[in-house]
């Protein structure tokens, strides 16, 4: 306990905790919609695209790699959702293709051009987000805070519309809610959240942050609002516990958080299995 308090006095630990909790909150809000719309894999695909973009930024020696990663990810998100519905290659195949493609190209580029002696270390930290969490600068923390407030604001403002579009696109269209536009909006926020979350858990584990809290909440709760709230609580809780554990036992942050999420998922599954349901 004492070690923990000692650690929390360091500003870089405080930054990490702030960024971690906010990211967890944002990703869980979005996760409910993505899981219900059968878009769970889009997070995975986009995170790999973000990895590829990061590699390109590295090759081009651009220090502010956000400037490349963010637009590229947002554009891919829009393309994925646009083309997913009505093309020769079906949505899941497109996602799989883009996801592994970006991963391969990203690693290739890093390998060819990097002057760093520890390429596998670099790659590992981008994929699993091990160290970058603790090297955040105040500016980056602010960017993260602003982005998360933006994501949460959008979600709250369009909550009912997002519900309607998620539950029944046909009906939403028929009553004059432009489902297309909201799908676009969801895609853009997903991209934002993924870029945010890359710092926390790395690009391989982002999907876990998005889908696990939502799935756990759905085990027990059965109204949209309670699922959203519960998933947000679970996600923040897991991120908190995960970070504490990783500080105390110096385990990798990302995988520890995901491990706690998995644990909660099993716990909730057991609850639901023995018949504990809430409305």
């Amino acid at each position, binding site marked *: 306990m004492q070690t923990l308090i000692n650690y929390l006095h360091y500003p870089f630990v405080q930054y990490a905790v702030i960024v971690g909790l906010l990211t967890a909150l944002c990703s869980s809000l979005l996760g409910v919609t993505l899981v*219900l*719309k*059968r878009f769970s894999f889009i997070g995975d695909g986009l995170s790999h695209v973000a990895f590829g973009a990061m590699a390109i930024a590295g090759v081009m020696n651009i220090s502010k790699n956000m400037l490349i990663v963010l637009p590229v990810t947002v554009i891919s998100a829009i393309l994925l959702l646009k083309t997913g519905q009505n093309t020769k290659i079906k949505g899941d195949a497109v996602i799989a293709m883009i996801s592994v493609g970006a991963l391969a190209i990203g690693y290739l580029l890093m390998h060819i051009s990097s002057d760093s002696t520890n390429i596998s270390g670099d790659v590992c930290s981008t994929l699993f987000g091990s160290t970058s969490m603790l090297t955040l600068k105040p500016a980056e923390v602010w960017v993260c805070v602003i982005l998360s407030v933006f994501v949460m604001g959008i979600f*709250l*403002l*369009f*909550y*009912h*519309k997002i*519900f*309607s579009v*998620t*539950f*029944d696109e*046909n*009906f*939403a*269209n*028929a*009553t*004059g*809610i432009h489902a297309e536009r909201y799908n676009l909006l969801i895609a853009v926020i997903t991209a934002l959240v993924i870029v945010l979350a890359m710092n926390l858990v790395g690009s391989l584990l982002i999907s876990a942050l998005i889908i696990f809290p939502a799935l756990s909440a*759905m085990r027990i*709760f*059965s*109204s*949209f*609002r309670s*699922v959203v709230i519960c998933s947000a609580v679970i996600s923040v809780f897991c991120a908190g516990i995960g970070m504490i554990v990783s500080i105390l036992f110096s385990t990798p942050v990302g995988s520890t958080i995901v491990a706690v999420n998995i644990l909660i998922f099993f716990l909730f599954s057991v609850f639901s299995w023995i018949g504990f349901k809430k*409305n």
Partner: protein
Amino acid sequence: MKTQIICENAALGYENKIVVQDLHFMVNEGDYLCVLGENGSGKSTLMKALLGLKPQISGKIIFGEDVGKNQIGYLPQQTPIQRDFPASVQEIVQSGCLNRCGFRPFYNREEKQLAVEMMKKLDIFQFAKKCYRDLSGGQQQRVLLARALCAAQKMLLLDEPVTGLDPKATNELYSLIAELNQKDKITIIMVSHDLRAAVQYADHILHIGGKQLFFGEKDAYLRSRIGKAFLEVSGEGE
């Protein structure tokens, strides 16, 4: 009696491929119109046009004052996503009020009240807090019907409303729809290939198959050549 929809020589389809043409029909307030046709006959294209989701290629579709764009209550077919969707009945019915909200992010008291009224009307108020996925097929259809009524109270457009329901729930849903039509004077347009129900409940029939094959009152349809032929094929003829 007010005319709510006039369709004049309309042709519908995708880009440059016409799916159904020569449509001439009109719908008056309080009508119960059943749109018949086989798969691929253009039923769903016609429905999209009526909902304002797809403009016609040529011709005209004119809407009356009280059923302007997005003023038709729509009962779509269920999608696989909905079967395990965690949402309470109340949330779903309320979402029918969204077109009244405009840019306002939340429902006001009036809209919440409307949702409650519609739930009571369709006898699902006792399930308001229950989860949609735990309801029976017939109850789920009533939830979606209540949502459609929240969106519009003059006209309902039903897309194969009894698909997947057992005979008892089917009959209950049909009589509920008939009651809405007779008691509340809600215009019903039902797309269906259930000829038995069409003959029993509807007062007008529109039969399409690439073009308009018949439009008129039910009795005239039963006497017409196409009507007799269709009845025979469906095994419903006497």
